[in-house]
Structures are given as structure tokens and as C-alpha cells.
């Protein structure tokens, strides 16, 4: 049981960061199909930073910087240039996948993975899983990100502005809120938050490998929608999806339910939620509209 919970937590951390990023951007009215790309840029930045400095903290900074840069790219494309946000998101995912592949080749002459990089926690072979999980500061940050985000979104002036800009940008503008500026900040913040999910993956596995996020950004989007754009509910959705994944790993070989069907759970639940079959998910009113 403890093993199950720990494993769930390990799997959930990247989802928690990425979903937090998704909530911030989408509450401000900007579609975040970019989460996958943000995470991947974070993972690559973390590997580069940690490899060249020898310190995982430099990796965290470099990874977050990567997410920040691509967050800005998405913001400039979709806010300044009013590009279609869905297309911009897809382009950024392809762009990051390409750039990380190119620079993986350039920096490490490999098309699959980086050399071993330092990470957090006691990586010694004898260390228990509990020790490995709880000595990793990114796990703690991942657990804190949802409560902090809930507080920011619902209890701070910035959060109020983000929600106003996402629901009714014209009204917000009339009241003196700088709509574009709030959106820039929200999308850049989204990049940083989601990239930390990738940072965690790279440092946990002690390397960057090609496409290592493997669709996790889309699971995070599923969690955002399933959580009806509320940070806490999105966080619970992340834990739920991670628990399903853990179950699938532990059931392997037991041949009870095919693993493919358990892997589908987040996607099926998202469609069910969007269709309103349980309770309707209603997105922020100005989501995707360049006003």
C-alpha cells in the first residue's frame, strides 16, 4: 500500500506541475496544447544545466528558463500576432521536439539520450523508494504547487485579473486591467510551471532521452479539463490518473485488464467530462479567442 502511494506520487509530480501550468494559461484565456513542449524543454534544459554544472539546482534553473522562453514564444505568437492558439501550440510542440533532438546531437552526439546527469536525493542502490521520493525537493514543490496556485488564483489581485481576463477581457480592459500583459505573464508562468514537470523527469531518470515526456503534457491537459479548470480539482485528477497508471504497472502480468485499457482512462474520462455526461465542463469564456 505504501509502495502504491509512493509510486503514484512519483508518477503524479510531472502531471501536477504541467496541469498547474495549463490552469494558469487557460484561466487567462490562452489555450495550452503547449504543455508537452514546455515539459520537454524543461527536461532538456535540466539535463544540459545539470550536466555542465554538476548541480541539479542549476538544472532546475536551466529547465525553468527553457519553459519560460517557449512560454514567451507562445505568448508572442498568440497574443502579439494573434496566431491561432491551437496551431501555435502544435507548432511549439514540434519545434521543441526538433530543437531538443538537434541539440542532443550537437551537444552529446546522440540521437537517443544524454549522458548520466546528477539528480536529487539518495541515488544509491540501497536507498528505499520512500527515501528517494522524500529527499527530492521537486516532489515537495510538486505537492505544494497546487495549494499555492489555488491561493494565487482565488486570493490574490493577480489571480483575480487572470480570471477576469479569461472570462471577459473587454470588461477587464474597461476596468484598467492590461489584458495583454496579464496574458503574457500567465503564459510565461505556465511555461515555467510545466517545464518543472520535465525537469523532474530528467533529474529523476538522471538523463534526457528523446521525447521523454511521451504524451504526459496531454494527460495534464486532460486533467485540467477533467478538473474543470480549477487548480485543486485538476490536482486531484492528476493523482487519479497517476494512481491508474500505478495500478496498471502493478497489474502487469496479472492479465486481468489489458494495460492498454487502463492507459486510456484519462482520455476517456476527459471526453466524458467534455460531453457533460457526468457534469459539464465549461471552459473560461474567452479561451482561444484573440479579442
Amino acid at each position, binding site marked *: 500500500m505504501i509502495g502504491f502511494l509512493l509510486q503514484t506520487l512519483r508518477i503524479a509530480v510531472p502531471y501536477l506541475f504541467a496541469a498547474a501550468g495549463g490552469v494558469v494559461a487557460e484561466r487567462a484565456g490562452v*489555450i495550452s*496544447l503547449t504543455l508537452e513542449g514546455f515539459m520537454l524543454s524543461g527536461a532538456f534544459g535540466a539535463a544540459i544545466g545539470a550536466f555542465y554544472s554538476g548541480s541539479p539546482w542549476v538544472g532546475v534553473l536551466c529547465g525553468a528558463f527553457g519553459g519560460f522562453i517557449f512560454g514567451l*514564444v507562445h505568448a*508572442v*505568437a498568440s497574443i502579439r*500576432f*494573434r*496566431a*491561432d492558439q*491551437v*496551431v*501555435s501550440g*502544435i*507548432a*511549439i*510542440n*514540434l*519545434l*521543441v*521536439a*526538433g*530543437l531538443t*533532438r*538537434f541539440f*542532443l*546531437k*550537437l551537444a552529446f552526439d546522440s*540521437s537517443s539520450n544524454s549522458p548520466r546527469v546528477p539528480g536529487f536525493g539518495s541515488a544509491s542502490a540501497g536507498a528505499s523508494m520512500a527515501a528517494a521520493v522524500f529527499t527530492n525537493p521537486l516532489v515537495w514543490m510538486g505537492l505544494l504547487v497546487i495549494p499555492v496556485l489555488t491561493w494565487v488564483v482565488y486570493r490574490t489581485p493577480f489571480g483575480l485579473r487572470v480570471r477576469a481576463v479569461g472570462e471577459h477581457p473587454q470588461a477587464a480592459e474597461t476596468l484598467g486591467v492590461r489584458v495583454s500583459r496579464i496574458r503574457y505573464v500567465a503564459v510565461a508562468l505556465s511555461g515555467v510551471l510545466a517545464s518543472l514537470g520535465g525537469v523532474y523527469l530528467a533529474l529523476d531518470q538522471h538523463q534526457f532521452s528523446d521525447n521523454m515526456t511521451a*504524451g504526459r503534457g*496531454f494527460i495534464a*491537459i*486532460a486533467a485540467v*479539463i477533467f478538473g474543470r479548470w480549477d487548480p485543486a480539482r485538476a490536482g486531484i485528477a492528476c493523482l487519479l490518473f497517476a494512481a491508474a497508471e500505478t495500478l496498471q504497472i502493478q497489474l502487469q502480468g496479472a492479465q486481468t485488464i*489489458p494495460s*492498454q*485499457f487502463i*492507459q*486510456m482512462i484519462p*482520455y*476517456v474520462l*476527459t*471526453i466524458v467530462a*467534455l*460531453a*457533460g*455526461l457526468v457534469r459539464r465542463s465549461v*471552459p473560461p469564456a474567452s479561451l482561444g479567442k*484573440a479579442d
Partner: protein
Amino acid sequence: MTTRSVRAQVEEALLPPLVALLIALLAGDVLILAFGQQPGEVWLTLLRGTWGNAYGFGQVLYKATTLIFTGLAVSLGVRAGLFNIGAEGQLAAGGFAAAFIALHFPAATPAIVIILAAMVAAALAGGAVGYVPGMLKARFGAHEVITTIMLNFIVLGLLNYVVVNRVHVHETLHTPEVPKAALTRFADLISAFHGSAANAAIIIALVAALWVGWYLFRTRAGYDLRAVGLQPDAAEYGGVKVGVVWTKALVISGALAGLGGINFVLGYKHYYEEGFASGAGFLGIAVALVGRSHPVGVVLAAFFFATLSQGGLAINALVPKQMIDVLQGVVILAVAASVPEVRRALQSGRAAIAARSGDA
């Protein structure tokens, strides 16, 4: 009927891709220099390796074929105001259905029967996958962007389950080879194409492009579809059943993407293999975007992206082929960002000219 001249439309359609091409060339130069190579030499190698010899050109033809299908699929959706991001799953479903049907014909069946049946199966499977988001949008208002993305994962998971547990060749992730049901490989007709995967599916792709053009611009249903895409509320007021049009558009879109599966399954490998559709769905979005959702543009854009992708292999000795992945992203981003900008610039330019001639 419209006040916009043909010239204005052409300008608006051509400028963003040209801007994007320039930006991509610049970005490519930077990457090439970062790798310590000469840009001019790399670009020449890319052209020589694609349009410069029959094998390279054959590969471009082959890769363009799938992209024409997925590009048309996305375009048809865009014309109806819908974003079909599910082309990847629809393509895979179509490819699997084609292989599955072809496998179940007795060996004595004439090849043409098998080919036709496989094509119908591919289109039906893709259409069925497209129906789900269409119906969900029409009945529940579920946003098709999200449902098509999620369906990609679901469809690929289901196919993985079926292939792994039911119909794979031992120790592979592909089905057995289908008998006879091969579309003619161009290499069998013209020996210079030897080794390339180009096949008769390109002809079917071009016919599909013609059909989409006819459907969109020459039929009542296509008119309704475009009306819904431009202004759903007005179309509804004008008596068009918007939900029905949405569903129909996504079914046709899915069928087009599904039909693309024959290029790999009937034209190249003669079996369904897991992952054959990988990337072609997202690139279909790029093709539709650069081709401005017009069948002619889609065909041209498909050749452009196919050239890039095959060109990556040609330049790999000089610069990592991964550079092409970057350029694809740059092109999409640049087109997406410059479309609204170009439109505004052209409009304000015209307004200024109109104002000046009004003064005179």
C-alpha cells in the same frame, strides 16, 4: 458576389507561406552554421537528394501522398470551422482496416476487388473515428480539438491491443502480409524509381484533392459546409442544420485521413504496422495551414513538407536530420503568426490607397 479581387486573395494566400519560408531558411542557416557547415552547400544537397534524382523524387512522392490525404482531411474540417487533430488516429485506423479486410479475402480473389474493398474499409474506419468527435460536438458541444486529441490516444491504444493480442506476426508489431492487394509501385514501371516507395496511391490522393475541391466549391453541401465554417449562427438562421454539417464534415475528414492508410498498407509494406502513421496527422495540420485549406494549396504544401522530410535524410551526413523537425515547427509557427498580420497589413494598405484615390 465578392468585392475582393482574385489578386487580393492570392496575395493573402501566398504571402504568409513565403514569409514563413524566408524565416525557416534563416533559422536553418543558423542551425547549419551552429553545426559548422556551409548553408549553401546543405541546401543544395537537400535539393539534389530530393528533386535531383529519381529515387529521391520517388520518396518525396510517397511521403507527399500520405500528407495530401491528412492535409485534405484537416482542410475540410477547417472549412467547416472545425479543427480535426485526430488525423493521426484516423489514418492508423484506416491503415489497419485496409490490412484487416485484405487479409480476410480468399487467395483467388482478383486484386482489384481486394484493393477496392480495402479502400472502402480504410475510408469507413477513418470516418467512424471522425464520427465520434462530430457527434459529440453536435449533440453535447464538446470541443473537437480536445476530443480528437484524446481519441488519437484511445484509437492508437485499441489498435495496439488488437495487434499485440490478435493479429501480429510473431515478435513484430505488424500484421501478416496481405495477398495480392498491392497498388502498383512506380519502381515496377520505371526502373529509375528503384528502391523508392512511390506507388499508385498518389493518383488516388490527387483524385481525392479534385473531389474535395469539387465538393467544397461546386456542391450545395459544400456551400453549406463553408457557410457553417464562416458563420455558424448565420448559417443556422439560413436554414442549415449546423450540427449535421459538423458531423458530416468530421466523418468525411476522418474518411479522407483513413483512406491515406492505403499508401503504406497497399502501396508500400503490404501490412499494417504500429506507428506507421506517426507524425503524419500533425503534419497534416501544417499542410492544411500552409496550403490555406485549398486543395491546390494542400497538394503543393504536401510536396513541400515531403521534400523537407526526405531532404533531412539527404543532408544527414552534413547536418543532423533533426534540423528538419525544427524547420517544420518554425514554418508552422511563422505561417500561423503571419496570417492575421498579412491580412491586416493588406487591408490597411488597401484602405489607405482607397482613401487617397478618394481625395483625388
